[in-house]
């Protein structure tokens, strides 16, 4: 058993120092609740609607002292943190990134692959896209990181599934749209539908941390959740409002689900790969 904390925070737009303090505060609260994993939202260290502020708030997670303070605060637990990355190997490129930190150590940085750029979204105007999905070992199991829109592309989830992920963690700054859906924005249902389906057919945990608050008139929808393998809703945070939810999860449930539903045993990534290779190489085929 492990406790997962969903940190549905309201970051301050463009103020890294204030958001580092907020993260440290939440990590401390999570530690008191004996959380093994704390998941913060997309761009939690910076706020979402950054536009030209992107380069002012970018940091190198290996060197930046502010980021190292957060890493140091993960002794004995793990956290997923959203930030803007500029690394020495890609100077002048800015990535919408998620870091998995465990026990004080930076385990992995995922760079958002799918940057929404339509309607009110302008991400590809300001960010460079990530180029891969990599599933990594955390102290509690194999983890695949996704950022917001990545999650809505089912191929991204599939890669983590094929790589043996026990848990898919999606951090998000999803704005709410549509007011015909009861006590939540209509769009919240879209995320829950994906969470339910992915946890069911990947026989893995799906952890989704969204943010709350509003920026430039746009409200973030909240509604962070944890689905257990088999499409079982374990916990859900408040819609729209900030929240902090700690929920126990049984990591043995992955094994149970995979014995019951044999999707993973019978999966044939090589058939998918050959088919994709043909499609990518000869799109006219």
């Amino acid at each position, binding site marked *: 058993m492990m406790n997962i904390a969903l940190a549905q925070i309201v970051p301050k737009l463009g103020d890294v120092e204030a958001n580092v303090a907020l993260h440290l505060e939440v990590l401390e609260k999570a530690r008191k609740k004996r959380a093994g994993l704390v998941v913060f939202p997309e761009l939690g260290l910076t706020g979402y609607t950054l536009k030209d502020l992107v*380069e*002012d708030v970018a940091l190198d997670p290996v060197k930046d002292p502010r980021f190292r303070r957060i890493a140091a605060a993960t002794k004995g637990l793990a956290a997923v943190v959203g930030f803007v990355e500029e690394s020495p190997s890609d100077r002048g490129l800015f990535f919408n990134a998620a870091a998995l930190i465990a026990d004080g150590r930076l385990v992995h940085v995922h760079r958002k692959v799918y940057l929404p750029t339509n*309607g*009110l979204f302008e991400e590809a105007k300001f960010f460079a896209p990530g180029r891969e999905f990599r599933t990594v070992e955390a102290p509690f199991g194999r983890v695949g990181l996704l950022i917001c829109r990545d999650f809505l592309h089912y191929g991204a989830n599939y890669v983590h599934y094929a790589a043996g992920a026990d848990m898919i963690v999606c951090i998000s700054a999803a*704005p*709410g*749209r*549509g*007011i015909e859906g009861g006590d939540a924005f*209509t*769009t919240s249902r879209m995320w829950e539908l994906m969470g339910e389906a992915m946890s069911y057919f990947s026989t893995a945990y799906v952890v989704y941390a969204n943010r709350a608050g*509003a920026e*430039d*008139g*746009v*409200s973030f929808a909240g509604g962070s959740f944890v689905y257990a393998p088999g499409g079982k809703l374990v916990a859900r945070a408040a819609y729209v409002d900030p929240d902090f939810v700690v929920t126990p999860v049984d990591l043995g449930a992955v094994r149970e689900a995979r014995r019951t539903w044999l999707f993973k045993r019978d999966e044939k990534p090589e058939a998918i790969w050959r088919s994709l290779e043909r499609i990518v190489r000869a799109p006219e085929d």
Partner: protein
Amino acid sequence: MLPKINAAFVEKLLTGFIRDELGRHGCRKALLGLSGGLDSAVCAALAARALGPRNVLALVLPCGTGFRGEVRDAEGLARRLGIRCETIDISPQIEAYFAADPKATRLRRGNKVARERMAVLYDRSAEEGGFVLGTSNKTELLLGYGTVYGDMACAVNPMGDLYKTQVRQLAEHLRLPAAIRRKAPTAALWPGQTDEGEIGLSYDEIDEILYARFEGRKSRKEIVAAGHKPAAVDLVLGRVKASEFKRHLPPIAKLSPRSVGHDILHPYDWGR
């Protein structure tokens, strides 16, 4: 000093912009407030060249009798450009409003004056069937040195991407009188006011800092390293940050999948 602009090329672009933007709306006439200062003089000269002098109406809008020099310079420039000109003292409406509130601060009175000028311009634009031209330059817009819904209000703004010191270069090219080019910039919201006195820095220095930040994409640290006083850099960049709201339409609370200002996105010149 900012790099020199090609003033003849800028004149061609901006006269084209005025003619084209108004023309798309079936309009050939423009109005503007003429203060006797540099920005409105440049704008008036551009409009006269773009539309023909008789299609430009300049309104000189002093508040009271404390601005005789400005009024004389403005009327003189209008005669020189051959544009139509009227002078209206707006002090009766300002005084009537503040008669009930004599303790109003200078800033409140100044903003009221700027908004009264806007109200007169918009009223006359309906009668005239002309567009109100904005005269806020890039330096003012970035500093937020203007009154929301006052001097910042307009139908189109040909000046908004020229720093103050670039407007000076354009003024020289347009052969505007030296009296106008050399006078200390003022919003004329109260007698004796000057921009540089109120802001606390010269436009030369302000423009260098803004240019380094926005054209050069330099950080605060790099601008200080290039020789500007930290206090000056902080003053300028602090004003830019504090005035961000002045450069936006008011935020609309987003509720639906497609909202005005967020994701119903049509071009300004739609169908024009």
